[in-house]
């Protein structure tokens, strides 16, 4: 499987380990290896920006920190818009930091499907705990924002299970509301720790391909300089950790000639959104992020609240352009809610002559039925919470003004109308001993290679059902420590 190629020079920057990508997987893995005394270079395609370089989900942030300015579309009969980070810290810089530990039930399903060794909640708990010491996970110190509590109220009124989810966030201790606080993104937590441990972080550096020669890995990269000019640079190391995310890691492996099972099994949490209009004001400028999720229907689908500032509301109302003026008039009574399931599959491929990989998605009839059912349940809980109108973010869908109107929703989603989005992507290079489907072994080492590891969400064996960042960090720590312990780095 490993390439023995020419085209790489002997004039390269050398390290013990090169980590490609600085998101939750790369930052945690790189830190563990640097603290084990190895020289580590972490290459990041995007810029090294502070957490405060742009407001969350603003126009500026989308241009600075989102890959492709947030315009990523998986193509197929149904289309799926997905989002990835592209900056130091990766997705942790742009997500809301909602945090879960994965369930043992999901891990059990992964063990069965992929024959993963020594992967259980008990085995992962020390890794979760260690990561949580650096990236703080906290519950709100006071009441949740109203847009969050409304969802919780609706669930309670229906007798459904609803929880407050902690965040990777250090809330302000001197305020009952928890503001001002600090999001515990990688640029705030593991990246500084990595640098203190002697690691070198190299931003603005896109890896073109990797190859193995004479017992070492060579990494060919393209650097974008401040003036916009490009230059090529080469790195070499005994080991390489791929942490580019669930789309870019398989794309890099395939560009480098490693294709077996690679990018064949991308999974995600497809999400549908609605805007709910309430009778009273629930949305205020500067409010904290909503934190409630409904878990009544896990693992089929879960529901939650989205950030609902006016620009986001305008985007979510794009399917109802004639109602857009309502955002201007009544935004304080409006908020965005979502339902997300675990269905659908996708593949990752490179297109000749293009740098960006193509994702092809398939949402089957059962996946579409599940999302349609989830949308109806979301409307039900929002009416139970006191909503007076619900605007599904699906072109051509009716505005719902009562519980009775839910019956007007189509029983399934038409593939061409699905209009789903995904923030969580995984499983494009699953781990396990089942070589018929897996790309890496149970501890992240790419099958058939020496010194090549995966430490990001692509290694997970399927949907996490919950927000995945905690699991990505814990599994990356497990991967890195095992590699150190086995003297593979």
């Amino acid at each position, binding site marked *: 499987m490993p390439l023995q190629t020419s085209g790489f020079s002997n004039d390269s920057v050398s390290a013990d380990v090169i980590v490609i990508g600085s998101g939750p997987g790369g930052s945690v893995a790189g830190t563990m290896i640097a603290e084990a005394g190895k020289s580590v270079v972490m290459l990041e395609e995007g810029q090294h920006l502070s957490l405060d370089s742009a407001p969350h989900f*603003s*126009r500026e942030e989308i*241009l600075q920190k989102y890959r*492709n300015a947030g315009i990523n579309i998986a193509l197929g009969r149904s289309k799926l818009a997905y989002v990835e980070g592209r900056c130091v810290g990766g997705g942790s810089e742009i997500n809301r930091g909602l945090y879960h530990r994965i369930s043992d039930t999901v891990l059990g399903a992964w063990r069965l499907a992929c024959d993963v060794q020594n992967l259980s909640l008990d085995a992962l708990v020390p890794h979760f705990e260690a990561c949580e010491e650096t990236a703080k996970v906290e519950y709100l110190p006071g009441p949740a924002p109203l847009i969050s509590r409304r969802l919780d109220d609706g669930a309670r009124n229906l007798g459904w299970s609803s929880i407050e989810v902690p965040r990777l966030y250090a809330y302000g201790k001197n305020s009952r509301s928890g503001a001002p606080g600090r999001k515990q993104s990688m640029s705030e937590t593991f990246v500084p720790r990595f640098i203190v441990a002697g690691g070198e972080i190299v931003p603005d550096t896109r890896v073109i391909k990797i190859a193995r020669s004479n017992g070492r890995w060579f990494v060919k990269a393209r650097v974008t300089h401040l003036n916009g000019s490009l230059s090529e640079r080469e790195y070499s190391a005994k080991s390489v950790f791929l942490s580019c995310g669930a789309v870019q890691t398989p794309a890099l492996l395939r560009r480098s000639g490693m294709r077996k099972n690679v990018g064949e099994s991308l999974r995600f949490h497809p999400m549908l959104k609605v805007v709910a209009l309430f009778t009273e004001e629930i949305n205020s*400028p500067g409010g904290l992020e909503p934190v409630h999720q409904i878990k009544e229907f896990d693992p089929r689908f879960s529901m939650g609240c989205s950030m609902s*500032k006016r*620009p986001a509301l305008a985007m979510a109302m794009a399917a109802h352009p004639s109602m857009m003026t309502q955002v201007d008039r009544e935004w304080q009574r409006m908020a965005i809610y979502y339902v997300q399931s675990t269905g659908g599959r996708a593949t990752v491929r490179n297109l000749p002559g293009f740098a960006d990989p193509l994702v092809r998605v398939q949402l089957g009839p059962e996946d579409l039925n599940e999302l349609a059912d989830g949308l109806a349940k979301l409307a039900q809980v929002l009416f139970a919470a006191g909503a007076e109108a619900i605007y599904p973010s699906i072109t051509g869908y009716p505005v719902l003004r009562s519980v009775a109107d839910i019956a007007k929703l189509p029983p399934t989603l038409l593939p061409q109308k699905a209009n789903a989005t995904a923030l969580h992507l995984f499983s494009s290079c699953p781990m396990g001993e089942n070589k018929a489907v897996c790309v890496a072994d149970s501890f992240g080492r790419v099958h058939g290679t020496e010194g090549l590891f995966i430490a990001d969400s692509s290694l997970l064996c399927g949907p996490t059902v919950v927000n995945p960042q905690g699991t990505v960090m814990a599994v990356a720590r497990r991967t890195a420590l095992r590699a150190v312990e086995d003297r593979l780095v």
Partner: protein
Amino acid sequence: MMVAMMWLSFEKTLRSFADTIVETKQQFPEAAARHGPEVAMFLISVHRKMPDYLRPPFWGLVLLFDAWSLPMTGKPFHRLEHADRAAQIEAWRQSSLEFQRRFIEFYGSLAVFGLYSDLYHQDYL
């Protein structure tokens, strides 16, 4: 036809599109001058950053949108008056052709997002 093609402009079309959305939303003529350039730059920047295999088709769609008014008015979209530009946007929004509706949904929602990021910056504080 060749002369008409030379009149078409990707960037001018997105600038005119942004101005029209801003002016229509804000209901006062100075709005386009105040917010239009920032919104237009957002649309152009998004195009520069979108996946490279999507850029040529989107570039072509923008030019098609610019050329749409040529047979009827002799002018591309970016040289029309505000009222005519607004009418063309509305005609595409209501079109029976899906690609026209999707085009307006895509660029329209981006433009409004860009405008609202300007207008309601305080929401982020």
